[in-house]
């Protein structure tokens, strides 16, 4: 049963890695929603369901907002890059994943309370791969996915440490505001400012 808890962690590793390697908005946003589902399952291992479900609802709203925005955007082309770039990104994500697994025990030792390993793995992977994604691209959608993943990783860790409804509400607000900012950045080039 304990090993089953690793399934959402593995789902996080897979979704993040694919999002890092392939930049196709439909795939990226579906995987982002799946990632939020995995975060919700992991969060529900330690936090009350009423608190953990906020992550799922916000995740779906955020993914849907970005999806609708991309649908609205005219001529939103998926990235076309040479194969070597995919290989490079794949190797980089593999390196970061290995690093995340390697530091798992050391990180746990630094924390004064015991956090279940699947949660810790999911959280570190989201933070590390999110940061990697932020360092590899300037495209607004990919940057947004990177920031949202990085924040989800932190939220997953934080919900195991402290449970506050007010804090969860504010974090949900930040996620929503990030999605709206992303939507603005994606669509603004097509609009004209009226001075």
């Amino acid at each position, binding site marked *: 049963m304990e090993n089953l808890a690793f399934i959402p962690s593995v789902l996080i590793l897979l979704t993040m890695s694919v999002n890092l390697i392939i930049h196709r908005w439909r795939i990226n946003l579906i995987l982002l929603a799946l990632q939020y589902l995995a975060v919700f399952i992991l969060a529900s291992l330690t936090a009350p369901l009423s608190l953990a479900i906020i992550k799922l609802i916000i995740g779906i709203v955020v993914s849907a907002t970005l999806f609708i925005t991309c649908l609205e955007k005219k001529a939103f082309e998926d990235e076309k890059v040479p194969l070597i770039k995919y290989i490079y990104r794949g190797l980089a994500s593999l390196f970061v994943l290995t690093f995340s697994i390697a530091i798992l025990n050391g990180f746990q030792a630094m924390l004064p309370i015991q956090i279940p390993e699947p949660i810790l793995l999911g959280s570190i992977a989201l933070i590390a791969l999110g940061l990697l994604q932020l360092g590899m691209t300037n495209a607004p959608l990919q940057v947004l996915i990177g920031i949202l993943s990085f924040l989800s990783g932190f939220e997953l860790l934080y919900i195991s*440490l402290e449970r506050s409804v007010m804090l969860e509400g504010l974090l949900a607000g930040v996620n929503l505001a990030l999605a709206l900012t992303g939507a603005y950045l994606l669509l603004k080039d097509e609009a004209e400012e009226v001075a």
Partner: protein
Amino acid sequence: MSTPLVFIFLPLLIAIILVLLRRKPKLSNIIGTISAFLFALIAHFMPEDLAISIGSLNIELAQSINLLGRSLEIASANLVFVSLAFIITGLWMLGSAWLDVSIWFRPISLAVTALLIAALGVNPFLYAALLIELVVLLFIPLLSPKGEETNTGVMRFLIFQTMALPPILLTGWMLSGIETAPSNSPLILRAAILVFLGFALWLAFIPFHTWLPIISENSHPWVVSFILLIMPTTIMIFLLTFFDRYAWLRNIPQFYDILRFLSTIMILVGGLLLTIEKNLGRAFGYAVIVETGFSILAMGLNPQGGLTWFSMLLLPRALGYWLWSFSLSLIKQKFKDLSFENISGLFHTFPFVSSGVIAGQLSIAGLPLLASFPVKRLIWFNIGSPNLLNALLIFIGSSGLLVFTINSLMHFLKQGSDLTVEEKPEELLIHKMIIAAGIILLIFFGIFPQIILPHWTKLLLVFERFPIIP
């Protein structure tokens, strides 16, 4: 009635009204400017007991309100910061009347001021990090308006500012374990690293500064200067709140040495980058790094009285930024590009605007007789006593802006340049008057600092536990 209602929720309500009036820039500007200065005046003249008497009417304001089990509090001691924040907003709102800024500038600047005041008044105070993140997100439409390409600086600004959120919140959780921990506990070191990392990201410490020159080159100078003044000022006050509340943090061995070291790096690197800069916009970004360095240095010189200099530096800095960025905005509106080769010989066609740039730069650099000089002089004279090498490095860094100003002046005075202005190259009388007033004000502050600056030391009354040593 309560102070949070007056200084947070009322400005937010006016910001919403300004959103509705955004297509009427003149009206929204008048309402925004008057309300910002009005809030500043109310905060300034509010009695200590928060009781207002108008004729026979007596209103006693509560200093806090409860919200979802948490509280927002603006005590009498906080009102000095509140008035400073609204003065800054009012000044920028006023200047925007003569500049071609985004229609969202007025509502967003007022909303942001209210949110930043809320950030300093929220309990538990670590929730401020979330409010600051919301402020960052509100700034994005200003930095990257519709129809303009999103520059990398905006994306980096968003990334770095968001990355600051987790370390600050994690610190909050760690604090519960630290209060009782011995001073050599590894928990203290970890929490201190997280605090410094979070603030380093927020305040664009080197090497997290890369977004600063990019946004100051590409975004509207007026918007950039407002953001780069109000955000770091609030965040530095927030940093002082950390030092005030957590004895374990300020009791770290070499605490002041660390602050001085970090600030010296900022001043030195920012200054050196300024000496080789060839773009007026990018230079503003580097000058902000140097200025943040000076504020942190003032905190590091607290045993010599640094915090009073920190508080007295804020208004002269605001005035310097105001004049500098107002002149830069006029140049950018005319020439689109702020690089030297594009604006050589500017003084011959735009003498007031180029004088405004030079005066703003010289004031920020701390030239005698200008606004920042009286306070910077105190910092320069005192930095030598803890460490002479620091003093030398700070001298080199401080010279950076002076070197850049001389460089700018040489380009402005070049003869036989081929300026390409679409419209008739002349300065409007109102622009000349504003710039002249700005220069006169900078000189007034430089000659008579004792009239206005000591008032701002009251900003420190909030920090009851962080000792002001001398």
